[in-house]
């Protein structure tokens, strides 16, 4: 299964992950090898077969909408890399 370098770069872009030149080359090679293993599936006829997303069939679970205490705000924020006051701090989202 041929996979171009551009395609690897595009996928990294979709996921918002930076890959070095070296990583892109290795990824292209590894992914090609792995995708080749998937080819066998196309031999199987799955016409009319329903997809299974969870092995144990379950209906949507409902519960009463009852308020319960949340975790303390400052404890939750304690795991954040960067905060200001009560808020998460992030870098510029919209550029000029």
């Amino acid at each position, binding site marked *: 299964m041929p996979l171009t370098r551009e395609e690897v770069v595009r996928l990294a872009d979709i996921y918002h992950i930076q890959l070095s030149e070296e990583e892109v080359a290795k990824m292209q090679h590894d992914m090609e090898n792995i995708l080749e293993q998937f080819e066998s599936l196309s031999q199987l006829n799955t016409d009319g077969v329903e997809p299974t997303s969870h092995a144990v069939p379950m209906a949507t679970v409902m*519960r009463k909408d009852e308020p319960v205490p949340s975790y303390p705000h400052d404890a939750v924020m304690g795991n954040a890399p960067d905060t200001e006051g009560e808020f998460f701090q992030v870098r510029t989202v919209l550029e000029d």
Partner: protein
Amino acid sequence: MEHYNITIHEARALLESRQISATELTESVLGRIDSVEPQVQAYVTLTEDVAREAAAAADKDLSAGTTTPLIGVPMQIKDVMSTKGIRTTCSSRMLENFVPLYDATVVERLYAQGPVLMGKGNMDEFAMGSSTENSAFHPTHNPWGLDRVPGGSSGGSAAAVAAGECLFALGSDTGGSIRQPAALCGVTGLKPTYGLVSRFGLVAFASSLDQIGPLTKDVEDSALVLNAIAGYDPRDSTSIPGERPDYTKALTGDIKGLRLGIPKEYFGDGLDPAVDAALRQGIKTLEDAGAFVEECSLPLTSYALAVYYIIAPSECSTNLSRFDGVKYGFSAGDAATAWETQERTRALGFGPEVKRRIMLGTYALSAGYYDAYYLKALKVRTLIKQEFEEAFQRFDALITPTTPTTAFRIGEKTNDPVSMYRSDVLTIPVNIAGIPCVSIPCGFSEGLPIGMQVMGKALSEETILNIAYTYQQATDWHTKRPTLG
């Protein structure tokens, strides 16, 4: 026998009759950790202070005549399950300093029975791997051969149980991550039915496949730990409602008349002749115990690997998108924009295997490929599940090898992802179908353990555990301990 080498049920008898104290048992295991951990490296974090405190509390309860099934028993928790106030890293740089605000449901349920937490188990990063070499911190070594991998991803858990660095451990199994290391380290590993045990507080890898289970020295211990962790949890929407039985009651040692299928596809190319021979002998033992044995065929077995390596990366790419460098975990704070922060956080925070799976998942879910890969895999999943259901109309359980070979050498497969993935070929179908399966030791080859799987239909834990228990009544492979230190 040294106290660190005993089972939970043996410890319980000694503790309740006050022949040893919980503190003595804990100190025995801490001493063992001191002497073998530098070689085995089964832990990411050790919690000696927590352990000593819990042991003292257990002794107080025992003196007052109060007891619980796991009281005073030293345990390890794989570092993918949240422990309140104790860092939970998933063996990743991304969560190196992450300290959860709450305990996973399984941890809460265990604590209610009084065990002693020795620390958090090393693993492949975010549970992605088959050798524990993908830990961002250090690899774990197999106690039966230090140049060998312990398997993965729960390699730290299996190695710790085998080496006497805890009496039992909790692992997680997405494609074999409890059973494969259990087999390679010569311990008993159970993957319960999907939904039997709550996943709340388990850091998600592939949500439709992940399941938590025990790694123990024998099947009786496995049932004891399963009793503690199984149960409905409203905080996990995939948790199966209803009561759970007492699994220890199912261990009768009587399997007369049970029908066991031997699927021939699990005994095909690539199976080490020594593994094959050990399995044949193991099956004979079960036959001698009164079970009916018959060969059968599961022709779709060979497709399970491809199905898994589409579904698991797809789900992982979705689950791991929460790591954005903003809310918790590592952040590459030196970037100019929010987007760049996210891209660099992932570049520096994730290791090579995690990146590979994220990219594969993104590919399989992306426009133009979704139908050919992801949807196709979900449909084949239906077919594999049906194939198992049909088999379980004829058989009470299926017996197979756990792994094609014994433990491979550290470094042997790290540069060849496809070859590494293939080491899960015999464990993956069970996760695809959501059924329970236990791996037990059934022999050795050149000093390295061999594992046998007992698979059953959904919610048949009592049956498969009893089969495994009956096997252990007739054999002593599970009593062997590695020479270390």
